């Protein structure tokens, strides 16, 4: 597994050597015919503070009072986890409230790190759809911060229109909102002296100029707080040292001379596309002008993509051993987190009918889910096998239905303009309540469907009987 825990890579089989071995980090291990195990899973406590990264602001850039702040965005308290077709019953509450649990970790981190203030770069919650729980939750957390003298600066994003905050609910005095698209200024002071000045504005997709964010002199550490994706060049030259932006679901940090452009990403990965750790950014401004950033992982539920490579000839028991080994590694190294894992198994060698039997795959997934779905634990969301590298040589040429089928698949693969008349089978209908389009496929989906259709066709046309 890589540092980010996003695309772990392992191989199983391939060389044909028999033997057994101990799985370990970065170590080649052979199980059954042959097993290779890649890197280890990332370790981390519930809230993990990453190593400090020194940003590129030169010491001559300014002299400021030393302080720290925590930056987060896109909490999206109203958005559930996506991409789960099933989950264990015992996990229901954990998964449903994952955004809240992760947000609590974020606010805990702010208190534990004794920051001066907290920046929220929009998309915290859709106030129209978040429900009472979100508002009550935010109020309680803001009050917690307020009791410890931590201020909150929150700019509106595309989904949290702050002017819609219920008028009957008063925000604590330590919370300052930036609901307007016009740039407003707030100065954080320590003993009467300006510590930092925040130039904040809500998301404005039509914003063409960043001139309004021009930082003044003697204002402490200048921070730009807004929501949206901007090119780094556009942000340069306004005197702002730290751009606290939001709108991206994965963490992104661009360090340039004189400024840092930071997207902390959502504090929780919502689907498999956002695999790996998520959280906030802890920023330390030193007295000598150095600015250091640290990642703070807050996610209570984490998506992981575990890639393995096995030989087609591997026995299902050997594959089970490898999967169990990887699963145990992940759960032991992330014991406080609920893990959602996409297993992606690439195969090497010639097609094996036994290995490709669909019912075996279903059994394997069922077994994985049964074995490791304690709470907290690991839930195997999917188990996908790549298309086989090689099909038996004779199939493509044989004068059988299978041969005809393979040639037909190859023809559709070769000529991507050949249409699939799926509407013929759907009764002419296409869209299902805006959820999905039954008969539409983009290029990637077409390739994926053809891969699956190839294997399903082989199995149905007797390929596994040979």
């Amino acid at each position, binding site marked *: 597994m890589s540092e980010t825990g996003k695309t772990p890579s392992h191989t199983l089989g391939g060389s044909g050597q028999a033997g057994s071995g101990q799985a370990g980090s970065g170590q080649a291990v052979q199980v059954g015919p042959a097993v290779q195990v890649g890197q280890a899973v990332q370790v981390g406590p519930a809230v993990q503070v990453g190593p400090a990264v020194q940003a590129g602001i030169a010491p001559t850039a300014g002299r400021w009072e030393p302080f720290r702040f925590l930056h987060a965005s896109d909490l999206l308290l109203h*958005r*559930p*986890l*996506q*991409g*789960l*077709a*099933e989950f264990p019953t015992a996990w*229901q509450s954990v*998964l*449903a*409230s994952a955004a809240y649990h992760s947000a609590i970790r974020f606010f805990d981190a702010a208190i534990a790190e004794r920051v001066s203030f907290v920046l929220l770069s929009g998309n915290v919650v859709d106030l*129209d*759809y*978040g*429900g*009472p*729980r979100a*508002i*009550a*939750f935010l109020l309680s957390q803001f009050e917690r911060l307020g009791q410890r003298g931590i201020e909150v600066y929150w700019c509106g994003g595309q989904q949290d229109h702050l002017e819609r905050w*219920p008028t*009957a609910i008063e925000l604590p005095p330590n919370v300052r909102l930036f609901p307007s698209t016009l740039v407003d200024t707030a100065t954080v002071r320590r003993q009467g002296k300006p510590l930092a000045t925040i130039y904040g504005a809500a998301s404005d997709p039509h914003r063409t100029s960043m001139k309004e964010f021009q930082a003044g002199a003697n204002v402490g550490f200048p921070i730009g707080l807004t929501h949206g994706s901007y090119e780094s060049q556009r942000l340069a030259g306004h005197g702002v040292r730290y751009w606290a932006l939001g709108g991206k679901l994965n963490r992104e940090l661009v360090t340039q001379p004189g400024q840092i452009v930071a997207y902390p990403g959502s504090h929780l990965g919502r689907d498999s596309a956002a695999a790996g750790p998520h959280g906030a950014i802890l920023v330390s401004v030193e007295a000598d002008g150095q600015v250091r950033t640290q990642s703070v992982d807050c996610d209570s539920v984490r998506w992981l993509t575990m890639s393995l490579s096995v030989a087609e000839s591997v026995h299902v028991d050997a594959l089970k051993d490898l999967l169990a080994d990887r699963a145990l590694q992940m759960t032991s190294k992330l014991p406080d987190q609920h893990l959602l894992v996409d297993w992606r198994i690439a195969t090497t060698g010639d097609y094996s009918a036994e290995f490709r039997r669909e019912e075996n795959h279903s059994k394997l997934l069922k077994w994985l889910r049964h074995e490791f779905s304690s709470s907290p634990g690991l839930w195997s969301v999917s188990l996908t096998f790549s298309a086989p590298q090689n099909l038996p040589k004779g199939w493509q040429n*044989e*004068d*059988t*239905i*299978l041969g*005809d*089928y393979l040639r*037909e*698949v190859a023809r559709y693969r070769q000529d991507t303009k050949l249409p*699939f*008349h*799926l509407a*013929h*089978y*759907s*009764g002419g*209908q296409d869209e*299902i*309540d805006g*959820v*999905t*389009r*039954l*008969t539409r496929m983009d290029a990637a*989906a077409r390739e*994926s*469907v*053809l891969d*699956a*259709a190839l294997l*399903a*066709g082989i199995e*149905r*046309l*007797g390929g596994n*009987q*040979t």
Partner: protein
Amino acid sequence: MKIKGMRIDGFGIWRDLSIESIPEGMTVFFGRNEAGKSTLMQFIRTCFFGFPKDRREKYMPPVYGGTPGGRLQLQRIEGPLEIQRSLDLQRPTDEGDVIITTSEGSASGQSRLKVIMNEVDEPIFNHVFAIGLQEIQELGALNDTQAADHLYRLTSGFDRVSLIDVLREIRQQREKLVGGDWYDPAHQLGRLLKRRKDLLVQIDGLVAGGRRWAKIAAHAKDFSRQLAELEQQLATTEQESRQVEMAMQIADRWQNRCVVEQQIAAFGALPDLALIDIARLDQLNQELLKQRDVVNNQLVERKHLRQSVGSIPINRLLWKNRNRIEALGEHVPWLESVERDIAQLDEQRQGAQQGLKEVTAEIHRSLGVANRDSSVLTQNTLSSLHGVARGIREDRDRLTRAETEVREAEIEVKHLRDTLESARAHAGVQQGAPSTLEDTSRLANRLRKRTELDKKIESLETTRRELQRDLDVVVENQELPASRLLVIGGVALAGLLLLLFGAQNWLSREVEESLRPAGILMFVMGMVGLLFAYWLKQSYERNARDELNDFLHQIELVRQQLKRARQIRDELDAELPPGVTHWETRLKEAEGQIGKMEDIIPLENKLHASRQHLETLKLKRDKVEATLKKAQRHWRETLKGLHLPEKLKPADIKDLSRLIQRLETWRATLEESSQRLAEKQNEHRLFCARIHTLAEETQLAAAENNPQKRLAELQRLVRSQRELIERREKLATEFKKLRSNYHAQRARQDKLQASKRRLLSAAGATTEEQFRDFAHQHQQRAKLRDKLEAIDEQIRAALGGHFQWDVVVGLVQRHGPAGLERVWDKLVQDAEGLKQRVSGLTLERGKLLQEMESLSSNEGLEVSRLELSVVEQQIQDLTRSWQQLAVINQLLESIREQHEKLRQPETLKEASKYLEELTDGEYKRIWTRLVGENLFVDHEGGQAINVEFLSRGTREAVFLALRLALVSAYARRGITLPMVLDDVLVNFDEERCHCAAEVLAKFAKTGYQVLMFTCHHHIHQTFSRHGVAVQALPHHRDVIKTEGGAVVKVNAEDEWDYLVDEPLEPEYKDDVEGEVAPPILEDLVDHENLKSEMWWETAYEAAVDPRNGND
């Protein structure tokens, strides 16, 4: 490919069985039940496809031992070959060990076998080339529709699987996912969509709960505000109630307090109690009495002391001068010292006079004059000479240096001049030629300019001549050339003609009116033409004139330039040396000379610089010389002004200065000692005079004349007078002290008296009695005040720290004891009312807060959203699965379409032929419609009957026909494998069995090898009658008993008779699959049905071909 023979080493019940010379056509293997027919068929399949698990378990290890496996001899077009397949029982695999050996002896393995088998695997072989009894039984077990469907499958793609079956399965799966009505809950998508809809409604409700939460929050906030106001109101009321209650409690005390206050007020205005101090008054009276006694005693003591002082004698004159006497006495040592100084200074003055005399004589000697007044010679006088002497000395030094520099410069100039001369001589500079580089350069420039002028003059001459020549041409061109005149004339003539013609048409009366506008037009055009000709002529002439003027101007310019150039040339000639004719030669010489002279330029420059430097030095030397003379003159004038001899040199000044310094020293010494001597003598005289004067003033008789002794006497008298004075002063001091004490006591007495008066007056009393009465009144009033204070204390104790005095007392004063009761009752009632309202509001607010808490802590919305996400993901997954199925469906439909288009007609045509033969012409044709999956057969009467309505036997005939057609279809694709039939004719009657034997025999003769296994005697007899080779299988027990195994040859008719009566072997009953003797498959019912008219009518009505329906 055909099987020629086989050798079973060990397989199932067979061991060491050899079957040889199997014919290329059809062979019937006859054997009774459990004879090992199926084992033989499985052996053939094993040789072709190996030992799959089920076959291994069933036939391995061999029952009677032997090497597992065997060999199959094949005949191919390419030649004979043998397949040997064996199994290692220790390490069993699906394939076993296979060796393909050709007649040439080459051996190969499994891959070669796949080629030999044309990639036909076992499923295909089983489905196409092998027909088992089981299939026949299954077909029979199907209902009519299923059987028809089963037969149709054979026509529309059938090898490992049936294309129809696969398509149907996919369709079923697809429809299971998505139905025709997407929202039909019978299908998976319908269920998901319904669930999704429900969830969306649920989520909307929960989100609406959010809005309700905000409203509740607003209500709760309003309630809180009202509650706070009511609680404030209640608190105020309760406070007032308690205050009134307290006022009621203290009302009586307050009344008492008011009475006491009135009594106190009755005393009116008394003096301040602090002013009425009775103890003080008593104390003052006592002190005044004592003080009077002390004053009287001191008056007596004063009188006694005054008398004692008057009795002491005093010399007042002497005592008056006592200080002067004592002061003079202190100066006696000083007087002695003055006398010593006088003697010493006198001696010093005499020495200075002698030294002055000697130095004066020495100065006279040095100046060479006698009796000169030396007092004028001072250091100041000589200092004016010092500056002049120093200037002369410096000027003299500068003159010496200047002369040295001039001499050195002269030597250098001479040296450079000699060097330059020799360099010039070396460079060959001629006499008379310019001697310097500048002159030579100037000459070369002039020569160069002279040469260029010659060229310029020549060029100008040429230009002038050319211009003159061109001028002639231009002059000639002043007259217009003929061509141009012709053009101008032509234009003018044409214009004139148009003018005239136009004028005629315009003005003539003879011309028609319609032509007048044309005439006007021509007239105008004629005018224009004439004007244009005129303008053209003028233009030509003007151009010619301008051109001539230009030429004349240019010629004039050239002429002037020429004149100027000649003038400059003449001026240059005058400046150049005469006699030079070849300017260029001279120019080259000059330029050569410049080249040489450039080498000696540095020397010339250096010489020039040295000369200038020499001149500068000479000027400087002269200047210094003049300065020196001026200084010497000034020296002499200065000596004269000082009356010193002019012969005096500056060097003598130093000695003279030293002598004058000594002279001035002696003078100063003499003057100082004389002055100090006079001062000392004066001081001595003054002191003696003062002693004398003092003695006279004291009027005492002088016993001594010596001043010092007289002074000593006076001092003694003063000392005795002092003792008397001291005694008198002591007495005076005591008197003063007594007097002072008296005055103090007297003042104290007055002070006490004044204090008593002030004490009385401060209290406003005029008498001591009045003062004491004031004190008594104060005592009475203080008692009343104490009483008042006690009442206040009681009231305060009652109020405690909770009530304010002013408020409670105010209430008592305002309402009185009776009014307070009424007020208290009203307040209590108000408080009760408020409490009830607060309680109600608190309850309401609690409910709201409870509801808010319930709403905000409810994670139902999140759960619903998660569930919605799950449902949507399931829909996505379902969509993807559906798409996969739809894609597979489309691809297979495409294949099926191709198959039905290209292969089905051929297969059906061939099957029709076989069916006709199998049914002896009763059924002519098998066909299918373009749409639908129904198979029809045409009866000989022309009726089209759906296969569904055929009898079982006929359906089996159709089945056999279709399978034969399939084998033929494979053969057309180049795949020819032996066909293996396992008692497929058991359900045929004798007649149809005969037809079948004929068909199969005929089929085999067309090039197909058919191996048929049967246990029925009549069947093998039938085949035998059709000339089909029949192989009776030996009993495996006999094979084992035979040493070296049994060798079976085809057509061994003599050997199968014994098999007929052989009893059944009980052992190895497991070998039953497909081998168990079927029941007597007398399909009498079907045959009877077939012959039944009623059946025919039903079948005809139900299954008549629509194409023939109109017939």
